[in-house]
Every structure is written in C-alpha cells, then in structure tokens.
C-alpha cells in the first residue's frame, strides 16, 4: 500500500475542513429575524455619524490609542527580543553548554502568553489600581511573551555552524551573536514586528478597563448600545490609521530590502521608534493622561489551598475545557486553512486584491462584535464563537501569507506556470509551497492567540473557560480565577508540545521519504 505523505502544503490547507461543520450548524439555525438590523449595520458603514461630539470623542480616542500602541509595541519588541534570546536553545548552549534553561524559561513564558491582555489588565488592576503604566504592562506581558516565542523559535532554526565557527576563533559570545545571528533575524523582526503594531493598535482596546478611553472604548461602548453609525465613525478612523501606519511600515520595509546595510537600517529604525515612544509620553501628557504618577500596591487575600480545592470541585472541568478546545480548534482551522485555499482558487491579481481587502475588513471587526452580528441571524451555539474568532484571525493569517509570498521571488511560480500548469496549481506549488513551513509555524502561534481570545467571546452563551473566567471575575471569585488561568496555561503548554512534536515528525517524515 502506498503511504500517504503529508507535506506542510497539504497540512496547511486541510484545517479548512473546519468550515464545513461550522457553516452547516449555522445554516441549520439560520433565520431572517435579524436581517433588518444586520442590514442597518452594513448600511451604517456608508453613513457613519458626523456629529461633532462623536467625531471629537473618536479623534481624542484614536490619539490615545496610537500613543499607547506605540509605547507598548516598542517596549514589547524589545522585551520580546530579550526574552526570545534567553529562551533560545542556542543562547544557553553557547553560555552554559546546556539547553535545559531554555526549555524551562520557554515553558514558563507559556503562562504570560496564555492569558489574554484583558485578563492581565483586570488582574493587575486589583493590585495597582488605575494607572496608565499598568495598562501598558498588561499589553506588554502577553505581547512580549508571544514575540519571545517567535524569536526564540526562529533563532533556533537558523544555521548555527557560522556562529560556532566564529566563536571557535575566540570571538566573545555577545559579539558573535550580534555579528552572525542578528543579521538573519532582521527580516523576521521587520515582518513580524511590523505586524505586531497593528495588533497593538487593536489590543489597545483594553485601555477601557483602566478608564483611559481610546478608540477601543468608543468601539466597545457604541457597539454595546448598538449605535452602529457612531460605531462606524470609530471603525473607519481606526481603519484609516491602521492602513496609513501599515503603508509607512511597508515603504520602510521595501527600503530595507533594497538597502545594502540592513543592520544599520534596523538599528536606525529602532532608534526612531525609541524617539516616537518618548514623544508618545508627552503626547499622552497633553491628552491629560499622566503616566508619571505614584505607584500604590493594594493587597488581595491569596486563596488558600483549601479554597482552591473547593473551587476545583465547583466547576465542570470536562465541559469547560472540552468546549474551549472545540472552539479553538474550529477557529484555528478556519483561520489557517481558508487563506491558502481561497488564494489557490483565485490567484489572479484582482482576486488577491479582493481577498486582501476582505482580510483587512475582517481584522477590523472585534470578535465580540462579529459574534453578535452572527447571532442576529442564527441560533446561539459554540460554532458562532468559532466563526467569530476564526474570521478575525483568518484576516491575520491571510495577511501574513500574502506578505510572505510577496517577499519571496516569483521564479518558481513562473517556472511551473510556463510548463503549462494551471494558474491555480502553479500558485500552490510555486508560491505557497515554499512558504508553507513558516506559514504553519505562524499558524501554531495563531492557535495560541485564538485560545487566549476565547476569553473574550462570552456573548454566545457557550460554556467554555472564557465565559467561566468572565463569570468568576465578575463574582470576584479569585480561587476560580486562579484555577481557570492555570487551565489556560496548561492548554497552551500542551498545544505547544503537540505542535513541536508534530513539526519534528514532519521533518522526520520528509527526511525518510527522501
């Protein structure tokens, strides 16, 4: 019997199957009761509110968001680089001749990574009260931990022979890292780092729980009151800002790829971001948000072991965890599988353009909002949550894939296409296949993010850890909160172990088939 070998190309597309159960369940519950409201929502996109109070408030909001996003973005990239370095195997191999520390640190970093910034915000709020620094810290913690994972993985995947060759001749470890391992990281820092700016802009939504306002607060509040025209005012402003920042970064990246001295470029860019961050401090000060204020620590009685045991017995873990896993897997399937599938089916320039617009749109809509919109025309169940989470993350994956493909040369596609293959297959083999491995790696990171985000789609009444976490937080039941966040961390760790194992197997099976 012929053994089927699974290439990364196929593994990337197969998850798209998740869309079938999700869509069929949703169609099953489809009704037209909410069509009117849904129509109103989309109509409102064409006629956002121009009331001066709304615009003024949104403009103030976007300034706060940009300033905080810049600060948290810059700090989390630096934090991510440092944490990435100390959680990489190559670092510990070269300073201590052992990889164990790297593994321990990497596992520990799963905890900050597995908890959504909103939850971090709420937890930190308990101890420090309202303080803009805490808002920044709440974004910084999970973001730098995510970046650390990406950077550490990429650092460990580099060819280390050059590094050891240089160390071999007596070069100090620091200099060797800087000269040999840093340069090949530059494209990764610039692409993944650039994309994190958009995340930081969207992530700054959590400023709302610190009473700092921002565009996210506008979006959340107007959406909560179903004031769609006012909602679109903020959404469009956010879209415009995101789009222009993206353009700027793209222009810079094009410049970077043309430039002969990439390290100098990126260090200059780092310096520029540092200045921007400094400027943001003053900007916030002008906006009446005072970063430099006193710290005060407020105690919170720690739950005892006995409390934890009781809390453990109160919750239906199998149900909670099971639901969370199903939602995460379905959403991840949609997010990972659909972009390459669609791009394969419609790889013309116009098609790719349309898809790219759709993805930007999907990224703009926060999952709780899309969940509510979906709920308006179908009956509630966990598929709503999966689709809502899946759609936004699909936008992210599509973007990463498009950028990856654009940054590689088109020669393979031309070679395959010129041999008479259809455009679709030429895209699959020539454009996607060279990208598929890194795409899958990004897919694994995204699954992490989706798991965290299940904490914020409570609206669908599905069970799941996310909803329970919100419920426990709103009851101030700290033992339950502790246990649920621990469950999130455990799931993240298991997910990481599985993805590491399967990528190993993938490499192995490729080698044996050779």
């Amino acid at each position, binding site marked *: 019997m012929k053994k089927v070998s699974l290439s990364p190309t196929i593994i990337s597309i197969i998850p798209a199957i998740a869309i079938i159960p999700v869509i069929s369940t949703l169609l099953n519950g489809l009704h037209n009761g909410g069509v009117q409201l849904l129509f109103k929502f989309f109509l409102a996109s064409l006629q956002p509110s121009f009331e001066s109070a709304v615009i003024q408030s949104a403009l103030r909001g976007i300034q706060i968001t940009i300033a905080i996003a810049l600060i948290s973005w810059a700090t989390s990239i630096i934090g991510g680089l440092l944490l990435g370095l100390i959680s990489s195997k190559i670092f510990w191999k070269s300073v201590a001749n052992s990889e164990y520390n790297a593994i321990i640190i990497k596992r520990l970093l799963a905890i900050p990574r597995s908890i959504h910034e909103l939850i971090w915000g709420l937890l930190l709020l308990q101890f420090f009260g309202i303080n803009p620094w805490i808002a920044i810290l709440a974004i910084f913690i999970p973001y730098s931990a995510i970046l650390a994972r990406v950077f550490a993985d990429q650092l460990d995947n580099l060819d280390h*022979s*050059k590094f*050891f*060759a*240089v160390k*071999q*001749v*007596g*070069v*100090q470890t*620091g*200099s*060797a890292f*800087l*000269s*040999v391992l*840093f*340069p*090949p990281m*530059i494209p990764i820092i610039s692409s993944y780092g650039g994309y994190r700016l958009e995340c930081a802009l969207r992530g700054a939504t959590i400023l709302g729980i610190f009473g700092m306002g921002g565009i996210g607060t506008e979006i959340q509040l107007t959406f909560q009151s179903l004031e769609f025209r006012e909602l679109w005012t903020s959404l469009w402003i956010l879209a415009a800002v995101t789009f222009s920042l993206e353009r700027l970064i793209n222009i810079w990246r094009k410049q970077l790829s043309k430039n*002969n*001295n*990439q*390290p*100098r470029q990126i*260090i200059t860019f780092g310096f520029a971001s540092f200045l921007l961050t400094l400027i943001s401090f003053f900007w916030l000060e002008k906006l009446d948000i005072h970063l430099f204020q006193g710290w005060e620590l407020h105690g919170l009685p720690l739950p005892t072991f006995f409390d934890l045991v009781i809390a453990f017995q109160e919750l239906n873990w199998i149900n909670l965890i099971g639901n969370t896993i199903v939602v995460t897997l379905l959403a991840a399937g949609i997010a990972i599988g659909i972009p390459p599938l669609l791009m394969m089916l419609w790889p013309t320039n116009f098609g790719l353009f349309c898809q790219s617009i759709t993805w930007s749109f999907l990224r703009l809509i926060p999952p709780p909002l899309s969940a509510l919109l979906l709920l308006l025309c179908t009956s509630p169940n966990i598929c709503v949550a999966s689709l809502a989470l899946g759609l936004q993350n699909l936008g992210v994956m599509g973007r990463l894939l498009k950028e990856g493909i654009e940054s590689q040369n088109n020669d393979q596609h031309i070679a395959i296409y010129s041999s008479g293959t259809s455009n679709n297959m030429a895209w699959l083999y020539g454009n996607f296949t060279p990208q598929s491995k890194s795409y899958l790696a990004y897919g694994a990171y995204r699954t992490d993010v989706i798991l965290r985000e299940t904490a914020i789609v409570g609206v669908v009444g599905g069970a799941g850890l996310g909803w329970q976490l919100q419920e426990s937080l709103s009851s101030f039941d700290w033992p339950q909160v502790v246990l649920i966040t621990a469950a999130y961390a455990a799931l993240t760790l298991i997910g990481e172990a599985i993805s590491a194992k399967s990528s190993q197997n993938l490499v192995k099976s490729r080698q044996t088939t050779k």
Partner: protein
Amino acid sequence: MKKLLQLKGVYVYGKNYPRLSNINLTIKIGEKVALLGKSGAGKSTLVAVSNGSLKPATGEVIWNGIPLNKRTHRQRREIATLWQDLRLVEELSVDQNINIGELSRHSFLWAFGNLLGVIQSKTCLESLEATGLSREFIKEPIQILSGGQRQRVAVARLLNQQADLLIADEPLSNLDPVLTYDILQLLLNKKALKMIKVPETSIISLHRPELIVNFTRVIGLKNGELVLDCLTKDLKSKHVENIYED
C-alpha cells in the same frame, strides 16, 4: 622545529563505523600539509578535530603544548579555518564579513559598530586586495556575489584573523584553474603582505593530487585511518593511487 599541533591516538565514531581511528600526527611550524583522501575518508572530521570544533571520543589534541579545548580566547584566535561551506554571514556586506575575522581582537562595541557599518579597518582593505577582489565590492551584500567572489571574501576574512595555523577544508573545489592558483598562493603564504601576518603553517585538504607540488608534506586518509604521511619530495605515485583505490 617547534611542534605546533599534535594529535595523539585520536578516535572519532560515526553511526556505524569509526570516522577517525587512531590518528597520530604532529604538525611543526612552517609546514605546508596537503591532506588527501576520497570523499568520506574522514578529511572533514580531521579538520574539525584539528581546529577544536569536534572533540574526539578518545585521544588528545595538543596546541602549543596545551590541550586544544583549554585555550584562552586569545589563543583560540591562533587557528583559522576556511570552511567548505565558507560560513559567510549572507545578510552582511563584504567588509562587515571580513571584519568578523578580527572580531576576536575587539570589544562588543566594536562588533556593534561593524553592524552599523561605521568600522573602517586597514587590515580589512589589505585582506580584500590580497585576494584580488576589487574594492568596488566592499559595500556589496554577500548575497549578490558569485561563487568565486564569495570564496575570496572567505579567504580575506581568514587572512584578517592573522592566525598561526591555517586549516582549510577543500577550499579549491569549484574554482577555475587561474583562481585555484591565486588562492593557493595566498593560503600557502607565498605572497608578501604589508600589515597582515599570514599563517606560516597550513593544513589544506584537497581533492586534486596534481596540486601537491605546492606543499612540503602530504598526509592521506583512507576509511578514517592515516595511511600516508611523508614529505612531498619523497612521495611516490603509488602512494596516492593507494589512497584513491577501493
């Protein structure tokens, strides 16, 4: 003559068979050693053991009277290696790569400066010129260079290290005849350079027996064993044939 490098009873094991078995070898200052052997005979392993990047399973390697792996940072600089895959940093420019050769003599700040492209080293320029590569290339990224040009950059980086012993792993494969001659002259220190100290002693592994006239001593490996070790002037053609026959 002073003993520079000594290998005593060196064994290295591969998966199924020993990659090096019982190698005893002494290299003295000023020797130019050609290392012959078929693919898989253990040449690369011997190179790796000699420069310290591979620790033998048994036996010892002595450098200037001390064990190879006990050298200080300063002493590590004394052995330079030209790797088969060159190991250039693709993302950096020609001068930045050549500067990496002298990195062990400088601080972290200097390394940072090199990354920014603000370091101008005289020895870097001389190394580049010694290899015959035009100055025009100095700011070009490695990625756009041809195979021969890369080889020269790697040699320039190696010269810029200013080591005592040069070890090269098949530096001449894939080179055209003119270039082969040029590079070999450089590696064997037959060209005088002003500022740069070129290693007096070298071990160079080769595929092409016709080049051994340039060396003072020839050693040959077969299935991981040292089967030939003699001065070039004493070499008989049957020695070489023995190495290459099955």
